[in-house]
């Protein structure tokens, strides 16, 4: 079982007060509670402030390209389904640059957990609008304010019958730890959209703004009720619910491939001499 010290990574280069710190804290706590040592989990990240995340803890890490976390994570799960795989992405990263991959990860229902650090802004590139920026938000390149409606990732995921749809809040790490554990334990694709204040560039969606709005879904809330889930997913205004909004038990893709039903691909031996005996038969 790992201790907090085992999960100590490099010193974060985030701005003091950044919501990412709350996410990091929640993640480490989830690792401790799930008893996952650094070599027993793989984190794939993209590029952005969130992309640096795995460097600030300890885990198998593939810090790949902006927007491309999910194809990498998908293949990792197919090759070694015994290893928990988490993708960490930004809102620009995975709702913008890599949107197509999100659609298909949900469709495949690959057993990967996607944690989106949703700060409703492009942090690393210094403050441009993101797909989740609210209408009217002023940025350097939107002098008249953002003119498009934001993407609601919860409604989007639900419409595709994503097998685990949750919203978390970086300011409530204790709750977020629980969500992360549930997502990792869930068999199938799990999306947690984590509301993450960016204290430097997003002066609209601040801790104060969230504090007035965010509330935990109660114990009586049934995440298997899809109609109710749609209502909760759409709720993003004066009140913003956090928790598991929707869950189903569609079989994950990696459970539906006979080739890897008993043994992970990475543990299957390659016997060149055996293959050589038959491989040319097709051509005579």
């Amino acid at each position, binding site marked *: 079982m790992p201790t907090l010290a085992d999960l100590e990574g490099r010193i974060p280069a985030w701005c003091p007060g950044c919501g990412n710190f709350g996410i990091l804290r929640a993640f480490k706590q989830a690792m401790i509670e799930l008893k996952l040592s650094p070599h027993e989990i793989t984190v794939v990240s993209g590029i952005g402030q969130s992309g640096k995340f795995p460097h600030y803890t300890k885990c198998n890490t593939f810090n790949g390209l902006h927007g491309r976390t999910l194809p990498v994570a998908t293949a990792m799960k197919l090759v070694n389904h015994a290893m928990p795989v988490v993708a960490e992405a930004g809102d620009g990263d995975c709702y913008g640059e890599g949107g197509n991959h999100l659609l298909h990860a949900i469709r495949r229902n690959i057993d990967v957990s996607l944690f989106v650090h949703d700060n409703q802004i492009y942090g690393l590139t210094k403050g441009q609008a993101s797909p989740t920026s609210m209408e009217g938000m002023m940025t350097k390149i939107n002098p008249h304010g953002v003119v498009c409606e934001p993407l609601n990732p919860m409604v989007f995921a639900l419409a595709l019958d994503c097998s685990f749809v949750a919203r978390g809040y970086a300011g409530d790490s204790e709750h977020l730890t629980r969500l992360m554990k549930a997502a990792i334990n869930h068999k199938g694709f799990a999306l947690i959209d984590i509301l993450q204040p960016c204290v430097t560039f997003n002066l609209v969606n601040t801790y104060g703004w969230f504090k007035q709005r965010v509330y935990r879904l109660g114990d009586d809330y049934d995440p298997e009720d899809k109609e109710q889930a749609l209502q909760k997913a759409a709720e993003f205004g004066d009140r913003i619910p956090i928790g598991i909004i929707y869950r189903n038990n569609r079989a994950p893709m990696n459970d539906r491939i006979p080739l890897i039903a008993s043994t992970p691909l990475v543990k299957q031996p390659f016997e060149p001499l055996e293959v*050589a005996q038959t491989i040319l038969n097709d051509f*005579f």
Partner: protein
Amino acid sequence: MARVFARAGYHVFIHQDYESRVRGGHNFFQIRFSDRPIMASRRPIDIVIALDRPSITNDQENLTASGIIVYDSAILGQTYDGPEFFNVPSVEIATEDGGSKIMANTVATGAVLGMLGVELTIFEDVLKGSFAKKGDAVIRQNIVAARRGHEFARHHCTRCAFSAAAVGKPLLLIDGNAAIGVGAVMSGCKFYAAYPMTPSTGILNYMASKSDQYGILVEQAEDEIAAINMALGACFAGVRSMTGTAGGGFALMVEGLSLAAMTETPVVIALGQRPAPATGLPTRTEQGDLLFALYAAHGEFPRIVFAPGSPEQAVYLTNKAFELSHKYQVPAIILTDQYLADTQWTYGGFDLSRLPYTDYRVRGEAYSSLPEYKRYAFTDTGISPFAVPGDGPHPVVADSDEHDEEGHLIEDAETRRGMIEKRLYRKLPLLRAEIAPPVLYGNPDAQTVFIAWGSQYGVLREATERLQEQGAAMLHFTELYPFPGTEKFDYLAILRKARRTVCVEQNATSQFARLLKAETGFSCSATINKYDGRPFLLEDLLGELDAHLG
């Protein structure tokens, strides 16, 4: 039909010509067979099997003096007069006793074999194999159909003077795409992700068809960006992986290629060229992406680029691409084109012992017993140990940002310098030493040396053999990057000695001739370029080469 010739011991060469549409259009196969090895298509045709009217108008002029055009007036809706025409009522014969119209094909094949004087036994075996899943009744009906066609031809083809008895041991018949697949499977490839695109879809099909038998996970990606990222994720997780595409898809993969380089994650990419820019001529051929394959992607890093000239070379070079990619942890590109992808060649077999497999990964016990681990440790060779995540107690960290030995992102100048030196300066000379020189076919003192790369191998080799007496030889390049040095074979001395050096390429800008000049300083005295999307036929190439012999 080609399989019948191959099983009878004939050398066969087939090239396919098809339009970019699913039904209709004028499509054809050219099947050439011989008792000697052959490796190109020819212009003159002995037998045309016309399934549509354009076959007759297009091919009549290429018919040899004793050639025959076989057709079924019921299919073409017209009869033709002339000694070269032979009407085989295949539909009528097929449906004689209530049989199915589909069997007209079997009748026609039987008829052609009859015209050639080939016994039916081998064809009957082929039919048994092809229809094994459909049951005995279907097999029996097809055999009857074949026999009727055969008999019809024996009785009615007065002009048929062919006699093609079996000549030897059965040969195998394989196309370029399947050859890459065979090479990949034999190299331990366990994961293939791709998005369909002609001419590389055949590799995807082949890998999928072998998935169950050899334990290969095949995934149709949502796009080529996903395909290459999946291949990298699969490799990081511990297996050998590959992707395949054409120029357009490769363009989308380019950022991923750079990611492979930065994270030092091995990947093999099959790039089947077709005429471009953009969508170009989807089902036709060109060698227009050589410089693109060499220079694609941002940043400076070593890569491997191989261009096989035949299915046999494709098997061996795919294996070598895997071995070197994994040994040096660099990306490898196998550059083919529609012509090589779709042509079928015959061989006695392959020397599968020439396909080494070395597991370069640190896995299992070897990893779990390590006291510490750094993914990008500095070493004399520049090659760092690449562990399988989960096998040992240390995490494996890869980063697309510049990173330190442990894989964590850095900004400092010194580490950056060290990493460039590791990835590029240390690995590149070692990689270059693994590269085989080009192969000379013919006399080293030849007055005229034809130069080719990749798929021009077959047709140019046959042409050069015919021009040997006139002092011609051929130099063929398959291992293009790192560009071969002259230590193992001083090919430059041969080129410098020759009076004429002619580079034959299927592109408009002589990309290889320019690469040769850039890498060695040597300028070819002339170039032959073909950029109409069609492959060279032997006689056409001979005509062009003749003009250079002077």
